[in-house]
């Protein structure tokens, strides 16, 4: 076969639907036109519908008086407050339960995930039993179970369960002692800040010294001692300016102390137990993803066995674990919106629920609620990208 010289195609220019660039342009223009048509159709219909229902659009309703109370508020709130304040209260409650949930789920999840890999057969089985049971039951059902079946069957206020006459648990919630700060307590936070700064300094200095001379101090333990010891020392010197206000039974209910409402308790339990089962699987697969050769190579270099886990396995496993872990945190935050089913006053419950029903401002309310969750998810994915970029394997 002889090679023919390439010739330019002759004849008329190909029609535009055979030209790739023009076709792409056309397709995108069509998509934009279709989207614009849909949006216009929706806007037109919505304006008609809103006009016929007599709803005015705009964010003006945020300054109106809400007129309803909220069971748990982190900031001052009364039924005279505005809808804008309702939004903040709901947002803070969402963040509170998500934060608590993330803490507990991480703790339980890591424990179960490591137990799943235990060389003890029974421990590994128990851990995988935990994972399989809680992962395969809908979260809403678990929330209902804790709220209606467990917490609602607790004793009444008069027959509360108590722990040392300081902590009480009954159908109305969990009552904890509340610290009362006396004058002179202000030095404690300062001591904590100083201690943290000192230990960070110590760790940096220790790392430099280790790199330069090969010697090093057990900096982690030292800094832990500073962080715990210094505030304690200040506490003792200032004469312990804290008293505890105990919850007391008066009439029909407890007064004083910190009250944790049962809705928060049920939601927190269900969210952490459910999410922990996913985190456990992530931790297990992250550790298993590190090939055994890494351990063997480290041992061959005569790195002590204790350090192999800390210096070789865990840093590599974290690279695998952190991205799905953050997406579980995001899921937990989104799932906290199920609060509305048991009446915990989170963002969806008080804002997309009560506020929407009272004002009828569906579009504004839903848009604001969505915006909150989208912002959170955007922040988390920004963190994930930053982490991935930092941790990505530097390949030759």
């Amino acid at each position, binding site marked *: 076969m002889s090679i023919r010289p390439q010739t330019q195609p002759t004849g008329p220019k190909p029609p535009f639907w055979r030209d790739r660039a023009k076709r792409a342009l056309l*397709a995108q223009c069509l998509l934009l036109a279709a989207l614009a048509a849909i949006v216009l159709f929706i806007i037109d*219909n919505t304006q008609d519908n809103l006009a016929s229902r007599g709803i005015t659009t705009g964010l003006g309703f945020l300054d109106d008086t809400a007129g309803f109370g909220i069971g748990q508020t982190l900031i001052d709130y009364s039924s005279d407050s505005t809808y804008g304040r309702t939004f903040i209260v709901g947002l803070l409650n969402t963040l509170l339960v998500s934060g608590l949930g993330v803490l507990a789920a991480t703790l339980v999840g890591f424990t179960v995930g490591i137990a799943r890999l235990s*060389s003890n*057969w029974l421990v590994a089985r128990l851990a995988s039993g935990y994972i399989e049971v809680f992962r395969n039951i*809908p979260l809403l*059902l678990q929330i209902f*179970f804790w709220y209606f*079946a467990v917490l609602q069957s607790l004793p009444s206020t008069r027959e509360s369960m108590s722990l040392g006459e300081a902590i009480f648990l009954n159908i109305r919630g969990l009552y904890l002692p509340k610290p009362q700060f006396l004058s002179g307590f202000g030095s404690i936070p300062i001591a904590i800040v100083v201690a943290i700064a000192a230990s960070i300094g110590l760790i940096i200095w220790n790392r430099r010294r280790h790199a330069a001379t090969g010697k090093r101090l057990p900096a982690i333990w030292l800094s832990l001692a500073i962080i715990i010891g210094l505030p304690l020392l200040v506490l003792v010197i200032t004469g312990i300016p804290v008293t505890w206000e105990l919850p007391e039974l008066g009439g029909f209910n407890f007064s004083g102390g910190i009250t944790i409402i049962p809705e928060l308790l049920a939601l927190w339990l269900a969210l952490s137990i459910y999410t922990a089962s996913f985190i456990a699987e992530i931790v297990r697969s992250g550790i298993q993803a590190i090939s055994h050769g890494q351990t063997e190579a480290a041992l061959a270099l005569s790195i002590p066995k204790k350090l192999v886990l800390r210096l070789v396995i865990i840093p590599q496993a974290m690279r695998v674990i952190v991205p799905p872990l953050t997406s579980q945190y995001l899921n937990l935050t989104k799932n906290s919106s199920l609060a509305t*089913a048991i009446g915990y006053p989170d963002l969806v419950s008080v804002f997309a629920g009560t506020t929407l029903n009272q004002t009828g401002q569906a579009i504004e309310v839903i848009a604001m609620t969505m915006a909150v969750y989208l912002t959170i998810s955007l922040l988390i994915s920004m963190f994930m990208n930053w982490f991935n970029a930092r941790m990505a394997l530097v390949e030759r």
Partner: protein
Amino acid sequence: MIHNREMLPSQPAPRRSIGPFAWLKANLFSGPVNTLVTLAGLYLLYWLLTPTIQWAFIEADWQGASPDDCTSAGACWVFVNARLDQFIYGLYPSEETWRINIVFALFTALIAWLAIPRLPYKRWIAIITLFVFPVIAYVLMHGGYFGLPRVSTQRWGGLTLTLVLAVVGMVAALPIGVILALGRRSTMPIIRSVCVIFIEFWRGAPLITILFMASVMLPLFMPTGVDIDRLIRALVGITLFQSAYMAEVVRGGLQAIPNGQDEAAAALGMSYWKRMGLIVLPQALKMMIPGIVNTFISLFKDTTLVMIIGLFDLLGIVQAALSDSRWLGFDVEGYVFTAFVFWIFCFSMSRYSQYLERRLHTGH
């Protein structure tokens, strides 16, 4: 010199390294700490299981029809028994439930055919499941044709509704997900950004707000006078939500196919749709199946949220039955039963997806 040219027969392993006792020693009692942990674990198991078994089986009531039949101290399964029809069919008229049974039977048969690897004609069965079965199911369940009495969707409920929501949401989301994933990988900037925004928007918001949005805002978006069925609203929300997750699964599958496949197909002069439809997607689909099953499991669990917008799925109808004044105080039984049903479905699906993952892991 004496040579032994024959292999000696292999010796049995030392007594101490085989058998149940050796296994116990190696796995449960290999040291003092391990022994302590094992004993603690055994105690935990005893502490959890004994009261549970006692409550659920030994001291339970099974027979009867009214709350008065609950005489013993344990669980009263009479409650579940008496309400079982409602839990499965919702408020569907009882003389018409055979229609749902046929749909169930047909669906199980089709899915079983697809799930068992040895059976032939997979492609045709898949096409029937995706395109013919939904029509049959709709005609049978909704009625109004061929002399079947009409049953409005307001009467659908229980496990039936849960399955309808999950399956319809899934089947509708799959093609949208494929389109979105292809769009996200497209080189055309506008198409790509539209797809990215769409996917990230639906993935970032919780399903509950999406359901609220579907039930509150969808009627606002439609021309005045158009009334959308409540079930359809929920389905629209679920489908949009699910399609975003599906798109990410499809994208994962597409990324696993080496570029050479697409380039080779392009070199053979195939058009974009031919390359995708005949070369890339069929290979990617194999990689995607476990991911698809996993998203289906989470969708199946998430269908419980529709009770918040007033539909009676399995959890919704159990919750409604629990507030019946004749049957008060059977919360634990109701929830345990529901949890069991969901658990069976989800656990078997997750096992199936693990099995597929192992089977499809053919290596290179």
